[in-house]
């Protein structure tokens, strides 16, 4: 899901797309860093690493191969922090492995982080309810994240010039086709996170006794013995 280094820098409109993408990414990252708290940083690092590693796991499919993007899941968990998480991951992919490039870093980050933030706000009402709703939110986020990112890349290529129209169409088509698989993987991940660490998704626990931390409340509300304990605390 990258635009390659030097792919669109030959035309003035291509340069405008690169500069515009860079500025929008800088803006998004600035907003994210202002909102980022110290408590958010460990999960930002974890999701950034997952995004970085996922793109190396290629699954051969005929003469083509596929790999996960996971931007929907990143956005679902992190919200605006998806901008710095994806920026850092793409930076290291570019300088260490030549995936994408430094001149296209801005536009590539914008195309992947913007759908992530959108997924966060769209799926948030569903994911905080936990259970099967969190799994559905994961599926939707995974699907929407990769499909929207593909369409944004296609839009960026189309803006760069008419010569890129065929490749833009290919990107949009491929992203739409891959969305279901990405959705299933994100659903499994969201379901697991919801069961093991619901506080990462902001899941609201069923009981909220005063004086008990959010994570503890979620754990306490599990079984009958724990419910009795909550009653005693209350």
């Amino acid at each position: 899901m990258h635009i390659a280094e030097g792919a669109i820098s030959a035309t003035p409109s291509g340069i405008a797309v690169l500069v515009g993408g860079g500025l929008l990414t800088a803006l998004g990252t600035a907003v994210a860093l202002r909102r980022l708290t110290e408590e958010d940083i460990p999960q930002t690092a974890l999701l950034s690493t997952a995004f970085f590693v996922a793109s190396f796991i290629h699954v051969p499919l005929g003469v083509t191969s596929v790999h996960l993007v996971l931007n929907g899941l990143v956005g679902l968990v992190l919200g605006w922090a998806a901008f710095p998480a994806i920026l850092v991951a793409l930076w290291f992919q570019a300088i260490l492995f030549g995936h994408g490039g430094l001149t296209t870093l801005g536009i590539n980050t914008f195309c992947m982080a913007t759908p992530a933030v959108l997924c966060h706000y769209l799926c948030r009402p569903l994911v905080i309810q936990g259970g099967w709703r969190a799994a559905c939110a994961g599926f939707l986020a995974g699907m929407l994240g990769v499909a929207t990112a593909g369409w944004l890349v296609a839009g960026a290529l189309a803006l760069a010039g008419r010569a890129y129209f065929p490749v833009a169409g290919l990107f949009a088509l491929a992203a739409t086709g891959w969305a279901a698989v990405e959705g299933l993987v994100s659903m499994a991940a969201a379901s697991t996170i919801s069961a093991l660490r619901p506080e990462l998704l902001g899941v609201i626990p069923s009981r909220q006794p005063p004086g008990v931390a959010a994570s503890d409340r979620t754990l306490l509300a599990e079984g009958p013995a724990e419910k009795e304990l909550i009653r005693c605390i209350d």
Partner: protein
Amino acid sequence: MLLPRIAYAHRLHVFVFQEGGQIRGQAYFQDGSPLRGGQVKLLDETRNPLAVVPTNEEGEFSLPVPRPGKYTVLVDAGFGHMAEQQIDTGEGDKQGQLLKESLGTNPASDAQAGETAPSGLKEVLGELRAVKSELAHLRAALERQNNRTRIQDILGGAGYILGVMAIVYLVKAAKRRTVPQ
């Protein structure tokens, strides 16, 4: 993403060597997979295209050498994914020069020199060519192995990300400490 190889932004590599009157080579991606159906151009010193050939299923290609000199082999995988390598085919003509001196003849190339050489010398030349070819293939395999993405490289990258995030954490913590409560 589900895309043909040409639409990946993954790094492209090319390895070229001279074998007889041909420039041979192989183009492949960072993950070691060959570039199938890529376009290979032979450019002269002023970057004028002299020949264009496609890569085969193994990413291999073969270009004719017009005359001894310095050339650039440019591989285009489409959509801005390119790789190039220079090659000096004059170096490969040293064999022909040696033969020229030993035979007192004026062969146009080492291949022609081989045809006019005495049988003993022909045998040595054949063996020399076989060794050169084997060496070139070994170098290609070694380079391909070195360029391949390894698990320790990926883990290293993941470590860098965690390091950057740790720096962000330190900066945030330092800011919090300096802000009066």
